[in-house]
């Protein structure tokens, strides 16, 4: 060990209580940053995944403009060719087709507007959580025809139960009237009011007959094996579609484009987090600044001796910076280790957030959130603490350069 480091180490422990307090502050801030960032990242992932599982999938292939207009005429005409591309992509977990129409739904007593969604019962079960959301009755079987699943709030509004009949009245793809009478097979409840209040699911084949869709659908819904795979799948899909027919007016949208609100709430949450972290780091920076201003105050005489024996200003600054870096590093290391352990514990056990936040419920999260420790969440916060505390110590470290030896020596 060089004398510089040895000196720094011993100087650090000249005032053990203050040093431990300062190091604890740094460690605590680092711990908090590791845990909170992991928690945020984990909850975003949960939010995205459950939102993806309930509504949108990670990716969709749609006709250009469909996302905005939702016009029944904007279709994906031959979804099976897209299916063939998807079959060849390793990182695709599952995909399904959906067709969607806005229609009037009537029971004997009431009428409401609703979204009618045609789904492939088998494929849908692999892509979304619909099957697991059934509260009453049962999910659609492979060969069902004039049977539907209905959201719990809509069922309430229509004052119907399973096995009741409802009439659906809408407009077909070619502009003709689409009308049918169907039987309620099951009632689902997702916890997302929007979905439960105005959606109905029916078998895709039956939908295509009723609405004159032929083989066309509106959405090819894809889930990837992980969130990270999304960009890759998107690129392959885009080139695949171009290869079939470059003039086909199809677009590939990812979850960010499909649910811009989700991205906004994530950004909002991240920004409010950052504001909090900023103040946290500021407090730590001031504690370091205070510690080192005290150090200068107490050791003025000693710095005077060092100057008298001919230490250069640069070396003096270096000595003080080694002290601050050593302290910060100890604190940060302790904080990262403790923060990671705590995060890993909750990563295994989850944190109960039932009834905590409306935003989360909106995106289908209730119950538990699992923080996710990553290299990024473990090191970015403490890394910033390191830089900021370094800058905070830089001020006193530079200040002693201009200390004049005689003044330091007469100072007692």
């Amino acid at each position, binding site marked *: 060990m060089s004398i510089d480091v040895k000196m720094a180490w011993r100087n650090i422990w000249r005032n053990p209580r203050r040093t431990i307090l300062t190091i604890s502050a740094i460690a605590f801030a680092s711990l908090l940053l590791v845990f909170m960032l992991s928690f945020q990242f984990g909850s975003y992932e949960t939010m995205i995944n459950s939102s993806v599982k309930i509504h949108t999938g990670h990716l969709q292939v749609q006709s250009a403009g469909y996302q905005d207009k939702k016009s029944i005429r904007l279709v994906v005409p031959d979804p099976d060719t897209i299916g063939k591309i998807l079959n060849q992509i390793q990182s695709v977990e599952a995909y399904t087709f959906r067709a969607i129409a806005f229609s009037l739904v009537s029971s004997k007593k009431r009428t409401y507007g609703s979204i009618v969604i045609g789904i492939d019962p088998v494929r849908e079960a692999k892509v979304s959580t619909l099957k697991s959301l059934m509260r009453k009755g049962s999910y659609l079987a492979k060969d069902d025809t004039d049977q539907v699943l209905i959201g719990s709030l809509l069922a309430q509004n229509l004052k119907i139960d399973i096995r009741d009949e409802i009439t659906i009245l809408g407009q077909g793809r070619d502009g003709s009237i689409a009308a049918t009478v169907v039987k309620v097979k099951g009632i689902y409840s997702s916890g997302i009011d929007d979905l439960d209040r105005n959606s109905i699911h029916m078998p895709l084949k039956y939908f295509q007959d009723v609405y004159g869709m032929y083989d066309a659908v509106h959405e090819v819904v894809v889930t990837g094996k992980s969130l990270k795979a999304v960009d890759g799948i998107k690129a392959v899909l885009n080139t695949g579609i171009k290869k079939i027919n470059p003039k086909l007016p199809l677009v590939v949208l990812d979850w960010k484009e499909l649910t811009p609100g989700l991205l906004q709430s994530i950004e909002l949450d991240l920004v409010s987090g950052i504001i909090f972290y900023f103040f946290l780091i500021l407090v730590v920076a001031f504690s370091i600044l205070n510690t080192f201003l005290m150090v200068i105050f107490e050791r003025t005489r000693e710095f005077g001796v060092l100057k008298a*024996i*001919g230490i250069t200003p640069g070396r003096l600054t270096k000595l003080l910076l080694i002290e601050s870096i050593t302290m910060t590093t100890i604190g940060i290391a302790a904080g990262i280790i403790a923060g990671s352990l705590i995060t890993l514990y909750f990563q295994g056990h989850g944190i109960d957030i039932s009834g905590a936040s409306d935003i989360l419920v909106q995106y289908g999260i209730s119950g538990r959130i699992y923080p996710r420790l990553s290299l990024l969440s473990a090191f970015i916060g403490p890394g910033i603490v390191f830089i900021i505390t370094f800058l905070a110590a830089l001020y006193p470290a530079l200040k002693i350069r201009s200390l004049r030896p005689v003044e330091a020596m007469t100072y007692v």
Partner: protein
Amino acid sequence: MSIVECKDINKTYQQGKIEVRALKGVTLSIDKGGFVALAGPSGSGKTTLLNIIGSLDQPDSGSVSVDGNTFEKMTQSQLALLRLHKVGFVFQSYNLIPVLSAVENVEFVMLLQGVQAAQRRERAKAILDDVGLEAEYDRRPAELSGGQQQRVAVARAIVSNPSIVLADEPTANLDSKTGNGLLEMMKKMNEEKKVTFIFSTHDNMVMDYARRLILIRDGCIVDDQIK
């Protein structure tokens, strides 16, 4: 051959509204190998003169040179280097770096000079042996007596073979027996290693050790005798 040259040095301090003329036109030349005492009553300007010779303080007018280096046009870092290589200091008290052991305190100067580690340790131990601290290498300043601390300070001041060692009342905080021991040791170093010592004192016993005695009063040299 003179190693220190002071020409017409003036230094005035401001104490509130009062101006205190600490040095009034001091001209002085000190030869290599000297063992010089600067004596005078309290407030006469001894510390001020030593600080100016050691480049710790700047005169208002006049010029100072050590070993041919005139301070006037030198920058702070050049002066730091000059102190590192040419000037050793022994202060009245609080000379040592508290977190370093005796041997490390002596080594530290050589570290700043860029001497190799192995050589540093060897030379530091040798010089501590010379000042009679062979048993005290690894003690921290707080574990040494006042006299031992001053010996370490002398060892640190002379280890790098400086042109001059400036000692401001090195014995003031010591009892007379320990003080005499320290002076004996300084004298021995002066004779054996040919180090030039300039020390201040207002103690008659201490003055007796000097080969040249400069008397200073109210910022002026009033007597200068070579014994």
